């Protein structure tokens, strides 16, 4: 990929990030919202990897590895919590989950 300039990577990363934010705001299903969050995290990863390549520096790549690892742990915990809520309510629309208000 020597021909792809940095700006293109950044454009794609920014677009991914925007899609993630919009998806989080528009969707009401926690699993879909988690997928949107995953997009945002990976947008950051793409930007990190692109910069690391440009700078020929390892620290950006290391950040990507760490984000990927943490994302796995985070997904495991988040899905467990969604399952816990689902078992109680048979329903996981976040607008319905609103016992706490005020």
């Amino acid at each position, binding site marked *: 990929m020597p021909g792809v300039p940095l700006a293109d990577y950044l454009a794609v990363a920014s677009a991914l990030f925007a899609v993630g934010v919009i998806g989080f705001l528009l969707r009401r299903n926690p699993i879909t919202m988690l997928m949107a969050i995953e997009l945002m995290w990976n*947008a*950051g990863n793409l930007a990190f990897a692109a*910069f690391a390549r440009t700078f020929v520096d*390892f*620290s950006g790549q290391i950040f990507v590895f*760490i984000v990927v690892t943490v994302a796995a742990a985070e997904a495991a915990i988040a899905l467990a919590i969604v399952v816990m809520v689902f078992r109680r309510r048979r329903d996981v629309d976040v607008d319905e989950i609103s016992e706490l208000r*005020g």
Partner: protein
Amino acid sequence: MSFQGVSISWPVLAPIVALTAGGLLVLLVDLASKAIPRGVLYGIGVASCVAAFVTMLPLYGQEQVTLNGAFASDRFSWMFDALLLLTLAVTLVLSSLRKAEDGGNAGAYAALLIFCTIGGFVMAGADNLIIIFLGIEQLSLALYVLAGTGFPREASQEAALKYVLLGSLASGFLIFGSALLYGASGGVSLGAIARAAAAPQGLFVAGFALFLVGLSFKLALTPFHTWAPDVYEGSPLAITAYMSVAVKAAAFAILARVAYTVFGHDSVALIPLWGVAILSMLVGNLGAIRQTNLKRLLGYSSIAQAGYIVVALAGVSPGGLAAMLFYLTAYAFTTLGAFAVMALLGDGSDTYAELASYRGLFFRRPWPAAAMALFFFSLAGIPATAGFYGKVLLLQQAFGGGPWGIGMAIALVFGTLVSFYVYGKVVWDMYAPAEGVAAVPSGNALAPWIAVVAGAAGTLVFGVLPQLFYASQPFLTAAVR
């Protein structure tokens, strides 16, 4: 940049190692036998706090940076570490009280709390973006689970779900912001970012803005605070106490280190932060007015308190760090004490958090009522309490911060006036004779009394003799290089 020669200074990491060992030991002991009393597991947890504190003592006077410049051990991080250990110990003591707190899984619960605090230690010493992210995530991931440990109650489940969704969203902002900061500066260390901050470009500004958004979510600063009251109300009581003190302290450690090492002076880039602080002070105090649940009220209160603490950074002056640490310490003693009173009076049900059941408390339980009044006076900032001197120090900083500092000072004074009404009403209710009110459940265990007395002692000592703290000011003003 090479992979060889990672410099590791084990003495610096000893507190973290001690806590890790403590957490693993709790897990192993829990695994060994189901007959182990819960008190033993929490006792091991408190012992590992003490061990971690002891390993911190030899570090005194030897400031250094280890892990190839990624992790700092200085006066600044020691203060936060000590505060985190205090909070962890109090939280463990409060949690040991009854099963409803930990959902019957004392071992996993205590271990998670300890691992959470390790995340806080990492945040307090983090000197580059990777370590900042790791620390925040270690703290957050454990807390997502802990928020849901009261899972037989539906509110606790809801709190966990909201926390994990909004917390991960915040991390998304933090990661993308970090990526752009890396792009603008060519390195992940705060030193490299400071060089880029000297001549900021668009990439740097965008990255720093996203980074601030992510951190503001974690600190529950307005307009990113919406999750906080729900999560505070739904989580188990001890976890709410932990969140409102330890999470705030650790996130402020990052904010302060970034502000001081990257900018080192009052910068245009920090203006959004001042705006967010003013909003937090207003929304936190005004939102607290109509609350009928004490945990939720303290949730709004913590939004306002976070806004106050930002004021300490107004001038990014050396005295600001001392002011911030004084206020955080005062806030820790006061808030932990208030939650300890609630734990003392509660019986594991949800009703103990309803304000209505505190009406006329003084006539039934005079001492807890007196302690609660003291804590609420301190949160409001009445003279002779720690909260008062904290606010005086904050105002001093605000006046050194130019026009935005003055704006924050006005918001601080206005917020304090509103909070007089909020906290005053609670105290008034406790001392008003009550007829036909459901008596507050009246637990009376030894464990929360220890925390109540410690909180009251801290609140009074820092309130009446603040010069004890001023004496250490020269020590603190040079805290961050």
